[in-house]
């Protein structure tokens, strides 16, 4: 009789383990450990838009408006956008240890550090990407300055070309990014 229970038990364990594997492949970064910095910060930006809210928001973008249509296209496949940004009036309000849990997540789970900019004036900016095959499946940006700490996490297939196309639209700053295709076109002309 004992053996008769083994098969369903194994099947159940397989289902549970597959759910855990799927969870592990999620590109969401847990940033809850930064919440205590809000009390010290002079300005705080906290954005938590999950997949459901993303779909709701996408409905409000007007397809007739070129700018809004582009943003809608960009966010359509996304599973979430999470931002935590703190600006402080004085230096040394946060420690490197505060960032360690986030760095630990970015060290694993298929994340690749694409860019690391070190600047004495404007702080350090690190850009991380997570790939699923050739597709970008997640983006993380970490900006650390003496008086500022910002963590951005976009979950889902991020289209960097489309993100670059948002330059200068609806308050989004001009990146000056040229996609390889547009470069080719300009060269041909």
């Amino acid at each position, binding site marked *: *009789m004992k*053996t*008769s*229970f083994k*098969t*369903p038990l194994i*099947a*159940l364990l397989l*289902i549970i383990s597959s759910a855990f594997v799927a969870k592990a492949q999620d590109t969401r970064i847990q940033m809850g450990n930064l919440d205590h910095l809000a009390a010290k910060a002079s300005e705080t*930006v906290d*954005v*938590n*838009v999950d997949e459901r*809210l*993303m779909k*709701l*928001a996408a*409905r*409000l*973008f007007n397809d007739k408006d070129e700018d809004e249509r582009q*943003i809608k296209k*960009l*966010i359509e496949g996304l599973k979430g*956008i*999470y*931002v935590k*940004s703190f600006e402080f009036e004085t230096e040394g309000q946060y420690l490197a240890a505060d960032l360690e849990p986030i760095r630990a997540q970015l060290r694993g789970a298929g994340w690749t550090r694409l*860019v690391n*900019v070190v*600047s004495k004036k*404007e702080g350090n*900016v690190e*850009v991380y990407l997570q790939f699923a095959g050739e597709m970008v499946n997640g*983006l993380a*940006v970490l*900006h650390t300055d003496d008086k500022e700490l*910002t963590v*951005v996490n*976009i979950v889902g297939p991020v289209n960097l070309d489309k*993100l670059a196309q*948002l*330059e200068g639209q*609806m*308050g*989004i*700053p*001009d*990146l*000056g*990014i040229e996609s390889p295709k547009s470069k080719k076109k300009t060269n041909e002309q």
Partner: protein
Amino acid sequence: MNDDYLWDKTGEPDPQVQELEEILGTLRYQPKPLQIPDELQVPQRRKYFPWLAIAAGVLLAILAGGIWLSTRSRSDAPPQQVKVTPPEPIKEVTPSPTVQKTPELRPNAQEMVAVHKHRPKSSTPVLSKHEREEALMAKEQVMLALRVTTEKLSLVHKKTQNTYPANQIKNQHRVG
């Protein structure tokens, strides 16, 4: 010697035949229930199958449910594909001979056509007041997040553009 005994056990039996009969008689068929030896028993193999079937059934149900939910959430627009052809029903409704205001009926028909044209636009599930407020908040948050993201990427872009040309010049010097 009479061979009848060999055929139908009549007549005198031959002593040798009788002797053989006694020896072989011990091996004759004796009706008793079938007893399969323990070594040959297939232990509980059949008990696996119902459990396997249940597990497979549960798995299939979960998979089917997941697929159904995902397809249900994706399909927002299509329900209005079944459109009633607009002008025909109006012509059928208006044949009463007593009403002779034909010039007034034509504009009505046009209005009805316009209503049908508007339907597909309103077919997208209407947001409730609460949902709309939530969606507006989410939209603002998305815009804010995109603004912050692109600001940071812009900073990276500036810094990387400032560094690369200098390196190129250095390299040119080295080569030249």
